[in-house]
């Protein structure tokens, strides 16, 4: 027998499941693509341009930071593409592009790379980017346009090309021009909170309504999430726990005052809850690792979401709920370390 000149010395285990970070991240991107496509169908060219811009800006930021810090580029792990897509999907479809670029830079630069890149970010980068935009441009980020507007495949929403740092024209006139009957620019959450008009659950489920680019269709988000769960690339416990937390809290409010607060169906399918619970709260880097911790984390975020919606000044609370959950996750992890095999027996034996 002649053996190879070199015998590899490696340590056990010599087998690997074969699943890699790149594959997980790539599959999350695949799962987001249907949402992107639906968003383009609902909101037209502006939504498409917003996504392309966000992804390009995010990838470029990460690559340039890697080059500047003389490290091999990390864009190959695909995680930055997710950040770009998620940021665009959580913004209004006609969000000014220069602001998209700024938000992308904040998401990838300070929120991710400054912490050390993939695996070290304390918060979901896309949400940090969005939180920055919300604080900096409160009007633009609440300027929603109606779904299925006329000419959406041939023209852009005027605000898309807003000139940096100039006061933007209000969209009211444009919306009046293009809107199809029954589709208003106000999101269901805003209508419910300020006008006490509850959108019916079926519309919310299918998503033919105003809102952030990718948050509208609960059904589509659930399907895309199910794909990731079935491929074992997403932890189902987090979205389930978060939706459960929101539904239970919503139910409590509804039972206390049915006239004031809508039922759990509305709570679940309106706003960004589905998108946030499925694609953002599940960012593994910023969520706990222990089985019990995952449930606590999810339930807590669901609760905070609904409390912000019903008690706070904002119409939507998903973003802050997830960021708070991210902040708490190291603590949750610490408090929920599982009981190890044989531990109880040890104490009893003493």
């Amino acid at each position, binding site marked *: *027998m002649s053996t190879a000149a070199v*015998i590899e010395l490696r340590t056990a285990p010599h*087998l690997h499941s074969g699943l*890699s970070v790149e594959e997980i991240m790539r599959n999350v991107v695949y799962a987001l693509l249907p949402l992107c496509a639906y968003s383009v169908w609902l909101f037209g060219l502006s939504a498409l341009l917003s996504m392309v811009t966000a992804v390009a800006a995010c990838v470029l930021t990460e690559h340039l930071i890697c080059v500047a810090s003389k490290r091999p580029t990390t864009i190959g792990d695909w995680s930055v593409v997710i950040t770009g897509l998620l940021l665009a999907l959580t913004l209004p479809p006609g969000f000014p592009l220069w602001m998209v670029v700024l938000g992308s830079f904040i998401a990838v630069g300070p929120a991710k790379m400054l912490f050390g890149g993939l695996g070290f970010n304390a918060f979901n980068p896309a949400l940090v980017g969005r939180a920055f935009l919300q604080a900096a441009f409160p009007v633009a980020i609440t300027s929603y346009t109606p779904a299925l507007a006329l000419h959406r495949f041939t023209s852009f929403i005027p605000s898309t090309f807003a000139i940096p740092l100039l006061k933007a024209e209000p969209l009211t006139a444009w919306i009046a021009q293009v809107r199809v009957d029954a589709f208003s620019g106000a999101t269901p959450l805003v209508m419910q909170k300020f006008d006490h008009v509850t959108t019916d659950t079926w519309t919310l489920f299918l998503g033919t309504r105003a809102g952030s680019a990718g948050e509208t269709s609960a059904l589509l988000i659930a399907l895309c999430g199910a794909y990731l769960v079935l491929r074992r690339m997403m932890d189902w416990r987090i979205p389930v726990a978060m939706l459960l937390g929101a539904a239970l809290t919503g139910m409590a409010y509804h039972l206390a005052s049915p006239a004031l607060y809508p039922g759990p169906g509305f709570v679940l399918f309106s706003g960004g809850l589905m998108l946030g619970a499925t694609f953002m709260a599940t960012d593994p880097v910023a969520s706990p690792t222990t*089985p019990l911790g995952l449930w606590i984390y999810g339930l807590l975020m669901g609760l905070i979401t609904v409390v912000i919606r019903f008690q706070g000044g904002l119409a939507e609370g998903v973003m802050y709920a997830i960021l708070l959950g991210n902040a708490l996750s190291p603590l949750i992890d610490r408090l929920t370390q599982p009981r*190890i095999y044989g531990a109880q027996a040890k104490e009893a*034996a003493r």
Partner: protein
Amino acid sequence: MNIESIPGLRRLWRGVHVPDYKETTNHLPIRRLPFPPLLIIPLSQHAGAPAVPLVRAGQEVVRGEPIARADGFVSVPMHAPATGRIERIDLSPSARGTLAQAIFLRPYPSASQEILYGEPQDIEHMSPAEIVAAVQQTGVVGLGGAAFPTHVKLKVPEGKSIDTVVVNGCECEPYLTSDHRVMVEQPHEVLHGARIAMKAVGAPRAVVGVEDNKPDAVDALRKANTADSGITIEAVPAKYPQGAEKMLVKVLLGREIPSGGLPADVGLAVFNVATLAQIGDLLPRRQGLIERVVTVSGPAVTRPGNYLMAIGTPLRWALEQAGCAANVSRVVLGGPMMGAAVSSLEVPVTKGVTGILAFSSGSLNGQHAILPCIHCGRCVDVCPLHLNPSQMGLLARKQRYEEMQAELHLYDCFECGCCSYVCPSHIPLVQYFRVAKQALRERKVQA
């Protein structure tokens, strides 16, 4: 063949389903491998004190003759695996990578290889203490890989009592089928060994746990078993690492071995099937352990199989006999999840070697870049001991070993490899833990 799994919720919840690659060899009968030109019998093939040579260079020995004696209670003797001449007692490469003392024995090509040593002994009329002493003389150690002297486990610790003997026939490591074939071909020896163990520890019953991917083994054992033996044979759903004794006793009997404790703490004694088969075979004839069944398999092996080979057979000889591709790049002793890759093919087969696996270059992934931990929690979900490998890995990177020991139960980890297996960032977690344990030992010595 219809086997029933044990009812209820008793199963291994954690752990991983690893492709088992057992179909290559699980149907192949045990075949004898020819003697190599030179046998290398290390004096320390077991946990405990190395054996003391009874022979010197130039001496002629007969197959089965003791050539080294046990040094104290936690030690076992060695027996000559072949009739031949002692060439020298010298250093030889070992599986651990270090050189270790070994007896070099050159078999006579024309000798009859008859085993002349040994005499019948009546186990029915032996006391537990006599059985323990007799088992030590056979030189049998845990053949499942741990190589812990079996007679030590048969001696019930002071103040403890054993109510059940657990027989481990799981063989959950991929590729390995040596225990499987022993159960199929020598069920009577296995059960006889179990009865001897029951007698030694004073247990009225024994439970044999076999993974349900070996229905023929379950069948063979059940057929060989008698109703009044006190032995039951249970099929358990296959999952890695069920063959770890901590896992198996939980699945079979719902008992947890305390952290840092022994099976005897919960009234159990656990033995591997191949170990008991050897005891059942050797003890009545008062002979010594001189050979064992080893699975030779892996993508680079052309004639994989279950080979009965003399203790001391060099890996190179075993692989030559089984046929081996030219581009072998990694040779593993034991299973692929916990086995060690060897640095030299002159390493001999010892009593604890369950398998020899040869992989050609490119058939194993191990070349993947290590990425940062993304906290996905897969390792936490699979750890059979409910440890937190993710957290320990992060601490290991910062060399905070004391915290790993004090807060995260580092020493409970038995290095099954599930965490490294599932890690999408390809972090060599188990290796980090081994390094941490070694560093803690060194710090302790220095202190």
